């Protein structure tokens, strides 16, 4: 029951008195309205804009925020109104929903902002009225596509994890030629051979002059048969190899074999093999010649290389219904006009309109405004109907064409948007990275300041240096990060330190005098390096392995419980780390384990490796 007619419920109940005399059994007792709803005004203050409505209006929808007791959470005693810190422009529509029972979607609002507001106020978007529902759905679909594009790009641009199987690697190389140089080379080579093959097919039919002992002009294909055969063989071999490699690398072979591109590949190379198998039999060579026609399908292999071709194909597929309608209406018109023309021209002598199917050709040529002129009507009646035919032809074709064009334009713009987003990706990620570095640096400074002050406080017993005035939000955030550090016994460092650490440990890796104990630490470190690689969402180039966007870096450091002299040395350095300002040069941190490890090659034990808590070295 729409709440808009809730106001008429008293009327409906009163009208039920009309049933009473007719009823044969006693009526049930009406529900007691214990809480006589005070019909008061409610003030809703949304970011300063005051909305007022009756209480009963809001309570029409008791399963939303405003209609239930949930709104009491937002009650502001001092001003005795309900305060919501949300967008007043969108709230207007939400309140109108309570008033009229219809939810509208304002076209100028961003779809995500609107969705958020609806979710906040507990209103399901499905009740948007018919007038605005389509627009809402369209915008939502666009938004979802955009997000999906982003995600796909993220997945596609993952850096190659080192432990891909060969098969997956091969598939990746085929699908994204830009991932490795080998794939790129292969991509260009196949493109080149496709072009060569198509051109050879075309050229071999060109007349090439006569041989001395023949009078007839020969085509180039016959004259240089061997050369063309060798070229064809080479191309087919390349295509076959490519197809087999794709088949091997495909994650789902059945799906791959059913896909359009693989069918085109097969069709492109089959004629050659069939030609090899068949002998020079006269009967089958005719069929063989026909098979050669299929060689022209090689040109479709270009669609892997060209995005525009793919878009065109996709457009045609998505406009299938419009194309079907065009075809149907054309067929109808052709049949009608062909019949009329046939009977109109029946009387005239030596007419070309010998039958209705013969008239089809005239009708098609006329309706598509080609007008070859090989068939023309001679009688006046024929001419009248012929002119009507050509006029209507223009109309029938013009109708579905704009639909197809608009579809193509939409898909094309979508792909443009995707390209633009890919281009902007670099700047976007750089911006994100810069922001993160700023955050880390701010945090480092906070720690320096904080600990410096702590140290000074311990010494002097009072704060001598005033803290740099940082906003309370930031200081609380930093305090939180600090608590996290203390909890996990790890610390935050910035990029250069981490990269330096990585280099150092890799150097240590290379040096032969590693012990089993320390083997765990660089392993942990390299594993953490590689873990970073897997987790990050950037497109980092293969050359710089250490690029990352996250700032938590881990460096292994033996803990102080072991008996080895390694720890004695580290004990000395520990106070330096914890209490004082982090001004010790990073190399001290780094060199300590390196130096000690080389000393202590023999005494390291497994207990040492067991009690290896990973600690972070900080600046």
């Amino acid at each position, binding site marked *: *029951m*729409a709440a*808009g*007619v*809730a*106001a*008429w*419920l*008293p*009327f*409906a*109940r*009163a*009208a*039920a*008195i*009309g*049933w*009473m*005399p*007719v*009823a*044969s*059994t*006693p*009526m049930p007792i*009406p529900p007691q*309205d214990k809480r006589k709803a005070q*019909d008061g005004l409610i003030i809703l203050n949304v970011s300063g804009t005051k909305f007022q409505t009756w209480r009963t209006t809001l309570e029409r929808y008791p399963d939303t925020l405003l209609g239930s007791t949930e709104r009491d959470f937002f009650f502001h005693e001092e001003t005795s109104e309900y305060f919501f810190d949300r967008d007043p422009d969108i709230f207007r529509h939400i309140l109108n929903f309570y*008033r*009229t029972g219809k939810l509208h979607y304002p076209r100028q609002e961003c779809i995500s902002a609107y969705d958020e507001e609806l979710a906040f106020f507990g209103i399901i978007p499905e009740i948007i009225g018919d007038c605005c529902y389509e627009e809402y759905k369209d915008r939502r679909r666009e938004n979802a596509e955009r997000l999906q594009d982003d995600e796909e790009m993220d997945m596609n641009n993952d850096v190659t994890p080192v432990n891909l199987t060969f098969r997956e690697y091969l598939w990746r190389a085929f699908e994204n030629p830009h991932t490795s140089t080998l794939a790129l080379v292969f991509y260009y080579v196949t493109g080149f051979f496709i072009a060569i093959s198509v051109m050879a097919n075309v050229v071999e039919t060109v007349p090439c002059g006569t041989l001395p002992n023949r009078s007839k002009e020969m085509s180039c294909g016959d004259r240089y048969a061997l050369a063309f055969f060798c070229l064809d063989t080479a191309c087919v071999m390349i295509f076959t190899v490519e197809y087999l490699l794709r088949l091997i690398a495909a994650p789902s072979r059945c799906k791959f074999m059913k896909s359009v591109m693989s069918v085109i590949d097969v069709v492109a190379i089959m004629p050659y093999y069939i030609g090899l198998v068949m002998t020079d039999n006269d009967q089958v060579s005719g069929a063989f010649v026909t098979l050669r026609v299929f060689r022209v399908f090689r040109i479709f292999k270009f669609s892997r290389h060209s995005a525009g071709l793919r878009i065109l194909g996709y457009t045609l597929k998505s406009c299938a219904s419009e194309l079907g309608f065009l075809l149907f209406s054309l067929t109808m018109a052709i049949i009608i006009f062909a019949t*009329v023309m046939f*009977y*109109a021209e029946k009387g005239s002598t030596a007419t070309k309109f010998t039958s209705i199917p013969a008239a089809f050709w005239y009708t098609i040529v006329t309706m598509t405004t080609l007008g070859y002129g090989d068939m023309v009507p001679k009688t*006046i*009646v024929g001419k*009248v*109907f012929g002119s*009507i035919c050509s006029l209507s032809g223009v109309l029938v074709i013009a109708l579905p064409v704009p639909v197809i064009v608009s579809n193509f334009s939409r898909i094309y713009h979508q792909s443009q948007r995707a390209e633009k987003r890919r281009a902007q990706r670099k700047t976007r990620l750089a911006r994100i990275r810069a922001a993160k570095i700023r955050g880390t640096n701010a945090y480092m400074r906070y720690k320096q300041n904080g600990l410096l002050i702590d140290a000074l406080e311990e010494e002097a017993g009072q704060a001598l240096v005033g803290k740099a005035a940082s906003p309370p939000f930031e200081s609380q955030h930093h305090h939180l990060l600090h608590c996290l550090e203390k909890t996990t016994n790890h610390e935050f460092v910035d990029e250069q330190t981490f990269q330096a650490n990585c280099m150092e440990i890799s150097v240590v890796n290379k040096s032969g005098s590693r012990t089993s104990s320390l083997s765990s630490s660089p392993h942990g470190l390299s594993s953490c390096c590689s873990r970073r690689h897997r987790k990050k969402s950037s497109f980092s180039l293969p050359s710089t392995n250490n690029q990352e966007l996250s700032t938590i870096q881990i460096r292994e450091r033996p803990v102080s419980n072991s008996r080895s002299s390694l720890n004695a040395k580290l004990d000395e350095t520990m106070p330096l780390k914890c209490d004082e300002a982090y001004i010790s040069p990073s190399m001290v941190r780094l060199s300590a384990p390196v130096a000690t490890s080389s000393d202590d090659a023999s005494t390291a034990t497994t207990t040492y490796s067991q009690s290896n808590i990973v600690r972070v070295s900080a600046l």
Partner: protein
Amino acid sequence: MLTMNLEGLEMIAVLVVVVVFVKVLEQFGLLEAGYDDSVEDELELSAVRHRPEGLEQLEAQTRFSRKELQILYRGFKNECPSGVVNEETFKDIYAQFFPQGDASTYAHFLFNAFDTDHNGSVSFEDFVMGLSILLRGTVQEKLIWAFNLYDINKDGYITKEEMLDIMKAIYDMMGKCTYPVLKEETPRQHVEVFFQKMDKNKDGVVTIDEFIDCCQNDENIMRSMHLFENVL
């Protein structure tokens, strides 16, 4: 030179040419086709709008308090911004309360009962007068109102056919999915029971006095008349 032996297709061709000629002339405005519709369109623009009498007058005429009248009017105007309810809107509103069945017939009878001046639309005054009787009236007034509802042609007698219509309308509101299953003759049987009870002198019609007498003697009916008194 026109020869008189025009064959079939040639006739059609000539016809086509003439039609095209006429259309072209129309385009040039030299031949006007009938266009009486445009005048009628303008009349529809001025929609019917009705403003009710003042609050004091309504307060005097009905038994509702000022506040109650305000609440009633707000609900009324919300659903019918033009101030009057026509039968279609009335049926729509009533149908929303009974989604399982078809409430249009009963709504039609209700509409006639509310539309006391029979002008095809229920204004706010009609609405509120009717409600005043139903919710705040004496039992006598309610019974008279019910009698007027049943008496479709308003001739002072309820015949079996009228009652059958009303009964069918009420059963239609139940819809198909009932338990026990609704049979064809149920309304008729119900009408028989009703007439047995109400028609004292067995003349096949129920007059208003018979009706009121009988209802006042029936406890169930008396009790149910007080059911909806505190609806508003």
